[in-house]
């Protein structure tokens, strides 16, 4: 939000969702630790974070299936949990898990879900057909869910989440476990929805997904927001334009190298097998190249969001 230009965007009627100091404890464990963020109308905010960072817990608090320990949640100027019913009428949720009714057909799934919103059957049918066309599933409308592939099911879950014409679409890892083709198809559809002005909240750990869809992002680690802002700006600020990767071997005297880089004010990250070097500008990049040239295995590549993510949350696998 702080990266938005123009003060008119700060008007209340443009804010779809505001979360302040939101906290959730499960016994002694703090799953979400005093996070605050907001989403403007028509924008997509992405929440990134490793497994167990608190992404799904946050989403579950927004829709009231997890009770917050403290903090406030305001959606469409109503508060959770007091006005949950009013809020949920205008929210669409794509859950991480597949919870379609396996015994029912595609169209039956959509119509029954619409009935939970008290949408009249005739309108529900019209919308369902429209959504099935949109997600390239119309031909499958009378197929029983258990006969469909993972990618098709995901698209039905998306269609289902849109059946009430939501003003806020919440997507919890919408393409998790899908093959590249299925993922691309969903991204393309989500981009179209975004172009039409759908406000979105997205959790993911696919960096490409976040880069393509989001305007702003939050990186969540161990329940805390460690950084928030616009993806490109974060890459620029935290990583710089390029990354060098050096493959380590026993012959390389790492201590010497680290010394040299730190003298030139160049940030590095180390994993057991690799050294990641982040020169912030051209001048430093030249220095790095000069140093690194003598080693057999290294690459120079443009930086990306994944670098930001790994730089901030650590290159090592953590045990939760």
């Amino acid at each position: 939000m702080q990266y938005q230009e123009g003060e008119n965007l700060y008007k209340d009627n443009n804010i779809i969702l505001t979360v302040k100091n939101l906290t959730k404890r499960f016994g002694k464990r703090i799953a979400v630790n005093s996070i605050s963020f907001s989403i403007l109308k028509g924008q997509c905010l992405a929440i990134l974070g490793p497994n167990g960072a608190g992404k799904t817990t946050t989403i579950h608090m927004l829709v009231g299936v997890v009770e917050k320990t403290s903090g406030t949640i305001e959606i469409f100027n109503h508060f959770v949990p007091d006005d949950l019913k009013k809020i949920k009428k205008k929210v669409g949720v794509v859950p991480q898990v597949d919870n379609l009714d396996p015994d029912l057909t595609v169209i039956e799934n959509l119509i029954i879900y619409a009935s939970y919103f008290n949408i009249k059957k005739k309108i529900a049918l019209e919308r369902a057909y429209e959504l099935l066309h949109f997600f390239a599933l119309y031909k499958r409308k009378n197929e029983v869910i258990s006969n469909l592939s993972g990618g098709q099911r995901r698209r039905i879950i998306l269609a289902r989440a849109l059946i009430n014409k939501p003003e806020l679409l919440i997507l919890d890892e919408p393409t998790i476990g899908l093959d590249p083709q299925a993922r691309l198809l969903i991204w393309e559809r989500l981009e179209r929805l975004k172009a039409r002005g759908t406000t979105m909240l997205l959790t993911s750990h696919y960096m490409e997904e976040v880069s393509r869809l989001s305007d702003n992002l939050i990186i969540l680690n161990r329940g805390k927001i460690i950084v928030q802002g616009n993806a490109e700006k974060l890459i620029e600020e935290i990583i710089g334009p390029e990354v060098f990767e050096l493959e380590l071997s026993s012959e390389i005297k790492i201590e010497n190298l680290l010394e040299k880089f730190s003298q030139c004010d160049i940030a590095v990250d180390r994993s057991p097998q690799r050294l990641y070097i982040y020169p912030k500008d051209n001048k430093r990049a030249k220095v790095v190249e000069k140093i690194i040239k003598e080693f057999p295995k290294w690459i120079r590549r443009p930086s990306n969001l994944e670098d930001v993510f790994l730089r901030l949350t650590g290159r090592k696998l953590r045990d939760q």
Partner: protein
Amino acid sequence: MILGPIRVWQRNLKVWTKHYQASLIGNLGQPILFLIAMGIGLKKEVPQINGLTYLQFIAPGLVASAIMYGAALETTYNSYTRLTIQRSYEAVLMTPISAKELAFGEILWGATKGLLAGIIMLLALPLFGVIPSAWTIILIPLLFFEGIFFAALGLIMTAIASNYDFFNYFTSLVITPLFLFSGIFFPINEMSKFIRPILYSLPLTHVVLAARQLCYGRLTPMIYIYILVTVTLAIFTSILAANMLKKRLIK
């Protein structure tokens, strides 16, 4: 508040219509087989009880038992499947329907399935030479409340179950004893005075005794107590079940 449970009920009805045959046979098999085995098998050995043949004696109670089984099994095994494997409850909770509305919808559905089994049993009774009286019309709403009670009881089990095996305790420690000791197969008032109060305090007993009175049109003032107890139990157990399911669903 009433629309939410109806939507959940409608969803379950829709799924049920896809495989209702298997479901109905499952619910009706046991009471019908008992009727045949006990009623016809013991016909000559057991003398008349209060002027009824043994088959006539057990038939109304078996109708009540069909409702108990239909309702309680629906909200245990089937509801637990929706809760865990199919995760349907999670989908419902993403919509304006609340956890309690969902619970009441499940209870309503369990009661409906129980009642359906009970009505089919009633309709089948003439095949065994048992002709119900006109009072049986009053029995139907009472059986519905019985269904509500047992569906709610089952849903409480679902709310605390950690796996399917848990329901074995419920069926063998609650449902089967109720089936055997609620006065379906023997007259309670001929038991010793120490056992009688225990048997009269069982929830199914009230429905069995009311069913027998209504079925043969032999009403006593006790019928009011049977109805009152059943309706009260149904309401309180439902409220408890809704709160417990909510506790399981909302963390």
